[in-house]
């Protein structure tokens, strides 16, 4: 190195010689460095390198392994995604089907409720009919008791009175006559006598007297 310094101090004397000398010095340096490097390389650092290489290899292997695993994971994930996606679609379809079913049931329910209401009003109508039949029944009962009363009391009583009248007068009347004409027959013991009186021409007591004339005062 002292040679270099010496060279540099004397530079202005011989430029090219100095340069060559400088280059020569540089090559020397390189050589020395090369040697030093070779020495270094050939020294114990080789183990370190080998170690480094091994580590590097290990890292590489790990990387490959990791990549494999990650790829697998991603693959599985893709599969899962696919199946999940499918599941989602299935669920979507199921949901739509349920919606349709629900719609159907809603409609069914509406129909049933409508039918129920119709049946209700039919029942109401029928109950009304039954009620009016029961009323008719009551009316019938009333008529029946009127008939019963007539049959058991009113008619017998009227018949009795008619019988008494006949017993006393022996007269039977004709009814299809004009209003002022009194027509009938008196059934005497031997004789049947017709009666024909114009009541407008006579006084009441006069008519009565004549009719009573048919009833004998003889005991």
């Amino acid at each position: 190195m002292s040679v270099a310094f010496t060279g540099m101090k004397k530079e202005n004397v011989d430029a090219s010689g100095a340069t060559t000398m400088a280059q020569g010095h540089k090559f020397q340096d390189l050589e020395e460095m090369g040697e030093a490097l070779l020495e270094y390389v050939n020294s114990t650092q080789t183990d370190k390198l080998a170690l480094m290489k091994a580590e590097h290899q290990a890292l590489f292997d790990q990387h490959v392994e990791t990549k494999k695993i990650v790829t697998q994971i991603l693959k599985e994930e893709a599969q899962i995604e696919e199946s999940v996606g499918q599941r989602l679609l299935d669920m979507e379809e199921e949901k739509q089907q349920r919606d349709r079913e629900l719609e159907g049931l809603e409609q069914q329910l509406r129909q049933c409720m409508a039918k129920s209401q119709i049946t209700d009003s039919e029942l109401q109508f029928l109950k009304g009919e039954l009620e009016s039949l029961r009323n008719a029944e009551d009316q019938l009962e009333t008529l029946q008791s009127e008939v019963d009363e007539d049959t058991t009391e009113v008619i017998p009583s009227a018949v009795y009175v008619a019988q008494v009248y006949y017993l006393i007068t022996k007269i039977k009347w004709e009814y299809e006559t004009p209003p002022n004409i009194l027509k009938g027959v008196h059934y005497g013991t031997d004789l049947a006598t017709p009666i024909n009186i114009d009541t407008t021409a006579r006084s009441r007591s006069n008519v009565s007297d004549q009719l009573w004339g048919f009833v004998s005062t003889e005991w």
Partner: protein
Amino acid sequence: MCLKKCKDDEMLFETIQTFKIDLEQKNSSLKEKQHDISEVISEIQQKEMQKDEIIQKIEKLKEEQAKRKELIVSQNKANKDRLRNLQKARLVFQDHLGMEIRTILGKTQLVKGEKLQFVFRNINPSDQESAYVVTLGIKEDGAYQIVSSDPVLECLPALESRLQETNNLPAFLANVRKEFISQARS
């Protein structure tokens, strides 16, 4: 990118959860609806049964009623017709013969006239409406008994004994009438 994927996947699972819950709700709605429908159907069935019952009742009642009605109506008509004729006769006797017969009921039910009242009108020419009454009772053996007369007739007891002797009601009444007339027209 992994993070984004993670987020997407999380959303996916959330969606699935939502769907799941939704589906469960829908299923329970369906069950409910089905249940409601069954209830309504059984209600309807009950009501139909009720209907049938009532219809049967109505049919039966209508039939019975129709029969009864026919019978009752015809009986009533016959009764009323008979009564009408009996009434006519009674009126003619009442108005023209001038004698009304009244049956007076005792406390018990009418037994062929426990008492008979004979109401004479057309006796007094100046007051045709005024009434002359004689009341008789009929005993269990059928014998007549005079109860009273209005106006009073002095000869009534004599007439009563003749009546009881002969049982001749027509003659008795004719004589009573004669007495009333002689009282009224003298």
